[in-house]
């Protein structure tokens, strides 16, 4: 092993040895907040998101409408991304699957539902479509979809803000930890420099300490989120089962978990760097 590697290994060992578990916990618990929120949003998205967030327009046809003419006309319109025809019989079948409704339908005695087209298109089209011959009624589902999307955006923005704040917190905690370490090891630093240690040699263990502290904090955060999800999932799964679903909250994918570790390590390094620039300007 060459001496450069040996010195780095030595500095890394020092960094690990000086790791304060309490500091790592502080950082980890703080980071667990935005990380947990992010994980929740990510795992909710596949459940309702993809379909609900694109705006849909439903065209209900008048009983005497000429469906084929209308369909040809809609197909010709390039502003409509996708369309599906739902005959009234199918709509009735779908409806009767919903608990309690079959009795209602039976009581009606006949199929009250019209034929319908479900379109994927901008809600601005709704008014124009309503004027087409044979269209009885237009329903644009966009309003609640827009609201949902806006709510999701706000939640995500909130998480980014929180994440940013706590990342700054991580940098501050590392900054202060390294400052105290520099003070504690003031003598050793001074003597080492007097007998020929380079600046890089003196700083190295502190950099490693910052990285180790950040990564330990990231690890704690991932652990807190994993344990919380595990606890939540036991209840969520029970609830989901009662709806006939096997939905559960998903964990972060491995790549994102590694990114969290790398990111927190980087923030720890940054905190150490700022602190050393400030507190190690020794002669």
């Amino acid at each position: 092993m060459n001496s450069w590697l040996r010195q780095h290994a030595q500095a890394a060992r020092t960094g690990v040895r000086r790791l304060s578990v309490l500091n790592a916990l502080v950082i980890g618990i703080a980071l667990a907040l935005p990380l947990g929120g992010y994980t929740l949003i990510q795992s909710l998205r596949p459940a309702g998101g993809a379909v609900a967030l694109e705006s849909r327009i439903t065209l209900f046809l008048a009983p005497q409408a000429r469906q084929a003419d209308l369909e040809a006309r809609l197909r010709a319109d390039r502003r409509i991304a996708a369309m599906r025809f739902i005959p009234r019989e199918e709509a009735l079948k779908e409806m009767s699957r919903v608990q309690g409704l079959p009795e209602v339908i039976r009581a009606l005695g006949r199929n009250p539902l019209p034929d319908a087209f479900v379109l994927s298109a901008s809600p601005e089209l709704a008014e124009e479509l309503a004027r087409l011959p044979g269209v009885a009624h237009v329903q644009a589902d966009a309003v609640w979809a827009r609201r949902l999307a806006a709510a999701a955006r706000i939640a995500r923005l909130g998480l980014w803000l929180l994440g940013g704040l706590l990342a700054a917190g991580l940098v501050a905690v590392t900054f202060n930890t390294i400052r105290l370490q520099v003070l504690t090891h003031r003598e050793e630093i001074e003597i080492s420099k007097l007998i020929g240690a380079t600046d890089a040699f003196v700083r190295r263990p502190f950099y490693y300490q910052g990285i180790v502290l950040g990564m330990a904090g990231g690890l704690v955060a991932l652990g807190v989120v994993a344990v919380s999800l595990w606890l939540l999932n036991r209840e969520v799964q029970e609830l989901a089962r009662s709806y006939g679903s096997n939905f559960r909250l998903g964990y972060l994918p491995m790549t994102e978990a590694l990114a969290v570790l790398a990111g927190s390590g980087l923030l720890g390094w940054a905190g150490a760097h700022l602190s050393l620039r400030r507190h190690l300007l020794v002669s």
Partner: protein
Amino acid sequence: MVSFSAVAKRYPGGHEALKDVSFTIEPGELVFLTGRSGAGKSTVLKLIPAIERPSAGSVLVNGQNVASLKRAAIPYLRRNIGLVFQDQKLLYDRSVYDNVMLPLAFSDHPPKEAARRARAALDKVGLLERERANPIQLSGGEQQRVAIARAVVNRPSLLLADEPTANLDAESAARILDIFAAFHQVGVTVLLSSHDQALIGRYGRRVLTLDAGRLAA
């Protein structure tokens, strides 16, 4: 080995520690630096490893002008100089052995060689059997010997000591000086400061006397 020419040192605040000091120390010499407190002995010893920079004049060490040395080059200059301080500057949070190992942490020696050198240095100052002790458990003279072991562990060609016997009883002081004399015997250039004229006189070596920042004839 060391050459001062027309060196002046003025500290911030105006105190003039050295005025027009010139001298040369040849390789392999043992030289004493003497004078009253405040005469500038410490300043001379601080200028050689670039702990202080001269206000005027040049300080040559091994032909290199320390006065114009870049900051990044200073550590490498110091690695070739063994420094013994008046207050020892030992670390009391670790053993005697680990104190001596300190300069080897940033040298290129593999761990086994480093350990061998540390023990050899401790053996030379007669403290091998105390390697596991904490410096605080040692007497003043023993602590000074640990400091010497640390200074010589990288086998420097130049050894500087600022008042190494200042706070010691006569017997300990004599022992310390004998250790320096032994290093001189094996070819190391040694520059020692002391205000103890009687002790210095016994060695019959070249003496540089400083008086209020000037070299006395």
